[in-house]
């Protein structure tokens, strides 16, 4: 059973063909890193996997998923816990796992960029979805943040989840790598 499957997928954006004839499958426990130079289509592939973009050709099957990308999607005026509770009811464990438990009552607008990144990841940690889609998850994270993310991804995979991450940096742990060309 695949949590994500691409069959002969092609994607064109702004008149430019980003990739074609792309086949991939993510099964429970899998981790796939999409790498490549700037503009090679890593983020577009993540959005395509999420269903936010449509393929020019081919077929994409996906299970329930959670996405963390550059967009925070959290109400800037609300404290962190309440902002996250808009998306998931039980967020305390996810906040602690992201190492931002002490910021639970701090408004989102006052978080630093690294703390905001952890908040976006906490939204994914709190989700019951089996498939995690992460766009540049290491950007803005310090060493502690990277360790926590790595640990959460490992636990998620052991529980039968899968992770697809678009990153120009090597992801910590064992990952299959899909290299996109510019």
């Amino acid at each position, binding site marked *: 059973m695949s949590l994500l499957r691409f069959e002969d997928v092609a994607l064109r954006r702004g008149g430019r063909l980003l990739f074609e004839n792309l086949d991939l499958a993510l099964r429970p426990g899998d981790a796939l890193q999409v790498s490549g130079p700037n503009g090679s289509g890593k983020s577009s592939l993540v959005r395509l996997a*999420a269903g*936010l*973009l*449509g393929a020019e050709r081919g077929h994409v099957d996906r299970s329930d998923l959670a*996405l963390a990308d*550059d967009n925070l999607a*959290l109400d800037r005026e609300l404290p962190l816990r309440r902002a996250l509770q808009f*998306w998931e009811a039980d967020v305390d464990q996810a906040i602690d796992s992201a190492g931002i438990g002490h910021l639970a009552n701090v408004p989102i607008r006052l978080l630093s960029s690294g703390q905001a990144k952890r908040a976006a990841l906490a939204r994914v940690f709190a989700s019951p979805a089996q498939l995690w889609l992460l766009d540049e998850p290491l950007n803005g994270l310090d060493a502690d943040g990277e360790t926590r993310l790595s640990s959460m991804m490992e636990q998620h995979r052991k529980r039968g989840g899968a992770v697809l991450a678009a990153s120009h940096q090597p992801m910590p742990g064992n990952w299959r790598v899909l290299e996109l060309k510019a």
Partner: protein
Amino acid sequence: MITAVIGRDIRRGLGGGAWLPIAFFLLVAALVPFAIGPDARLLSRIGPGALWIAALTAALLPVERLIEPDRASGTLDQLFLHGMADESIAFAKILAHWITFAPLLLIAAIPGAVLLSMDGQSLVKIELALLAGTPGLASLALAIGALTAGLPRAGSLAGLLLLPFAVPLLVFGAAGALPLEAAVSLFLTAGAVFVAAAAIRASRT
């Protein structure tokens, strides 16, 4: 999820300057006597039309904050990923916008009518017309907000788009033709849900 979106938008609307369009509405209503003069009979005669023009211009103010902040922050994407149809998002936002806009406008119409020397019967008529017309006005504002989200000079463009489409509301509302006003309002509300949803979908590409 739909009730959460409605609740969130109402909270944000009331906490984020819902009084601004109302203050603008009253300001426009207050300017009319200065422009026309103190002739109470003339003011009373043009009062309903003046209040409707004030309502239309007031409806323009919040257009840029109805959709764009949620588009830019990725909230619309996340709502989609949480299984919410774009039509449901549009409906929830229209309802929340109407709740934060219309009741305050109906209240503000009372001092507005006094400023324009309107009698009690005219006030009741304009209140009923606003009650019937504001769902259409709120829907139109949201659809225009969705169509212009992310575009440069969206505020100016919104004015150019919204005002012509609001002419039927203005005509029937100012004339006190309640059944026609309600029909136009219903038509705009029903159409705006699908227009706004299509615009939200298009903004993802």
